[in-house]
């Protein structure tokens, strides 16, 4: 299947990782490894479910400061080709159950490269309604508001 790229809604990140494809895949598919990179430190990540098969649940939780773990990502795998491709969306949860707040679909591909592995993340976001929400929140209204909104973004990030 070919994916079209919509520059307003999608982002694509490719990276040449100088390691065999199996090693990169394992960093994804192994829960303990995944927890180490999915969320930036000092926040902690806990993988609640990672059933890498179509329809399998994919759920992570986050603890901001070593305290209680709260929801982070609740998604469903759509495709899983061993060491080649992982597709997941948070439009669904495990077992293809519709989710409450759909937002994105991500396609992760792993390809052999003479120097290692070509890792590609193609992330597609929901229609501009989310952006409209940003607009309604005043994201673009005047610098003062922009800065307030940015501050919120920053605080959410850390």
């Amino acid at each position: 299947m070919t994916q079209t790229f919509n520059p307003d809604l999608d982002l694509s990140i490719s990276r040449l990782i100088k390691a065999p494809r199996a090693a990169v895949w394992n960093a994804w598919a192994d829960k303990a490894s995944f927890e180490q990179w999915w969320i930036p430190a000092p926040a902690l990540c806990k993988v609640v479910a990672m059933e890498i098969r179509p329809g399998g649940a994919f759920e992570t939780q986050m603890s901001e400061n070593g305290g209680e773990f709260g929801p982070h990502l609740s998604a469903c795998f759509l495709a899983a080709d061993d060491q080649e491709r992982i597709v997941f969306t948070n439009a669904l949860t495990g077992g293809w159950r519709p989710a409450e707040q759909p937002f994105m679909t991500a396609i992760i591909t792993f390809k052999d490269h003479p120097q290692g592995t070509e890792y590609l993340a193609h992330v597609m976001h929901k229609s501009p309604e989310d952006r409209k929400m940003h607009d309604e929140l005043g994201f673009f209204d005047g610098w003062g508001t922009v800065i307030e909104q940015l501050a919120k973004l920053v605080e959410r990030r850390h």
Partner: protein
Amino acid sequence: MENYSSELDGLFQALADPTRRAVLGRLGQGSASISDLAEPFDMALPSFMKHVRLLEESGLIRTQKQGRVRTCTLEKARFAMLENWLSEQRAIWEARTDRLEQLVLAKQEFLRDQQKRETGR
């Protein structure tokens, strides 16, 4: 892309402080001198200058000295980078990929060292 990511890191770091956000808010109304900007804050001038320098390094403001007065101006083009809704998501995925890469490389190195130790024996 790594540059883009570290630039965003710089921007977010610059914004992650109430004093600096207040300074940006004030500059949103127009350029101002450092002494005017510093006035509302109960802070020694050298401490305040650190905030100004960090903002300048992030590219969010520029400063210009005329005689004995240094004036700060908001660098509006810089905000475009942050205003973009996708930028936040991109920054998250860039940083995530950085961490994935680092983890994989660290594991590879560990395995290589282990192999060396075993064959060295």
